[in-house]
């Protein structure tokens, strides 16, 4: 049969030599290996005190950003929901009323915005799809809950607080900003 890869090896079943039959050299070799390991650095991260550093592009808990004046950026266009492969995002749009200019940046906003964290696969396609730079995945962990319904996160858990902004600069590399803002791409026209 034609081999699928070039990595196959012929199995040798030769008689063991006397030294091999004694097993003692092999045992001593093994003991040397384990002894060497005693002086290696432990791979342990002592969790509550130490935390493993996340990768700069770690995709965790979503955030709905506000702009510099504190108005919500999301315009409920629905592109994130359309792009979501897990169909985790739902929203209801509403029209901005007179006097709400401080709250919402544009005339249309999301009255409801829900992400089902049990459906979400944290692929980050919603972030790519968003034309308003409103939704980001951050390096925060999704908190644990006891009830399934509690995993449907509404705006109360997703929108960042005015006085407690979520830093997403690590995700906004030059490539990302270019992708979002350069007019040469059809999606930005």
């Amino acid at each position: 049969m034609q081999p699928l890869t070039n990595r196959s090896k012929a199995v040798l079943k030769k008689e063991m030599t006397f030294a091999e039959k004694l097993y003692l050299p092999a045992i001593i070799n093994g003991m040397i290996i384990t002894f060497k390991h005693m002086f290696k650095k432990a791979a342990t991260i002592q969790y509550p005190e130490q935390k493993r550093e996340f990768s700069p592009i770690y995709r965790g808990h979503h955030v709905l950003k506000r702009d510099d004046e504190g108005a919500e950026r999301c315009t409920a266009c629905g592109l994130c929901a359309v792009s979501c492969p897990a169909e985790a995002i739902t929203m209801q749009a509403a029209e901005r009323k007179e006097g709400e200019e401080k709250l919402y940046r544009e005339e249309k906003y999301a009255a409801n915005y829900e992400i089902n964290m049990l459906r979400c696969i944290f692929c980050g396609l919603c972030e790519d799809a968003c034309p308003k730079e409103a939704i980001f995945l951050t390096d925060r962990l999704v908190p644990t809950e006891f009830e399934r319904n509690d995993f449907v996160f509404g705006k109360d858990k997703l929108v960042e607080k005015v006085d407690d902004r979520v830093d997403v600069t690590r995700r906004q590399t030059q490539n990302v900003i270019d992708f979002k803002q350069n007019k040469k791409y059809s999606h930005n026209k």
Partner: protein
Amino acid sequence: MENYYIFKIILVVALFVVSLVVAMYSTFAERKISALMQDRLGPNRAGPFGLLQPLADGIKMFMKEEIIPNVSNKTLFIIGPCLAMTTALMAGVLIPWGGKIELWGETFNLQVADLNIGVLYIFGVTSLGVYGIMIGGWASNNKYSLMGAIRASAQMISYEIAMGLAIIALIMSTGTMSLGEIAAQQDAGLANIVYQPLGFLIFLICAFAELNRAPFDMPESESELIGGYHTEYSSMKLGLFLFAEYINMFISSAVIVTFYFGGYNFPFQNEINEALGLSTNIATALGTLVMFGKIFFFIFFFMWIRWTLPRFRYDQLMRLGWKSLIPLAILNILITGVVMWMNGKLN
């Protein structure tokens, strides 16, 4: 004579305490060493460097619910771990823990009892240890426990022979069966390991098997027999079984050190003691310290092997015992005899 009894009682109590403390910290050492060998940290939360971990484990064991299965034989079920623990503690009395000690104007040996058939006594007591395992496994009325118990007893019987034969060669070359004398003979001369390297190797391998430790931990084998003979045990009864294993390890390390590595003697001890002008008691204390150093090395060695080698298959274990070690031990006796005959020590 009164002083004699007081001294012996103090020594027995001290031995009891030391055995328990060493066994306690062996459990800690086992976890720590296994962790280091696997590039982990091991227990480090309870107390400084995790030193209070054995205490925490002990308290946990006592607090656990005690379950005696309905279908078990209750008397035997309770006797099992007691027997394992008792026999584990019994062998320590014969080991010479140091040289002579001067107290109240009298001279004592730092040894509870120096029987002239000490080697036989040690063998008798350590083989009794398998009864604890067998009775415990049988009384549990559980297939896994029974399998573990059968394996333990078959393994013990097989390796007892090779061990005994290895010791016969040692008795031939030392000419005595008293542990005190075996230790004292290695005072000025070389340690017995020089005369009996093969015997030592056989004895060491058999000690692993007798202790039911990896790579011969067939009676327990978590992965196949879910704990073997102590499957049904819980709370401190389980604790006693596990604890007995560590005491056995301590005692057998002490026996190995006494038989083959000079016991409390160390190289150039007489010269060093004379040069420093040490009194008898301090010289004895130094010897005891050296002996404990050797014992701790062997305890470490037992753990080193455990975290290096995988478990044998049962037929491999039996083949090694019957087909390799016993012929080797007989060969060893033969060689010892021939060498002694050539040196004119046989009359």
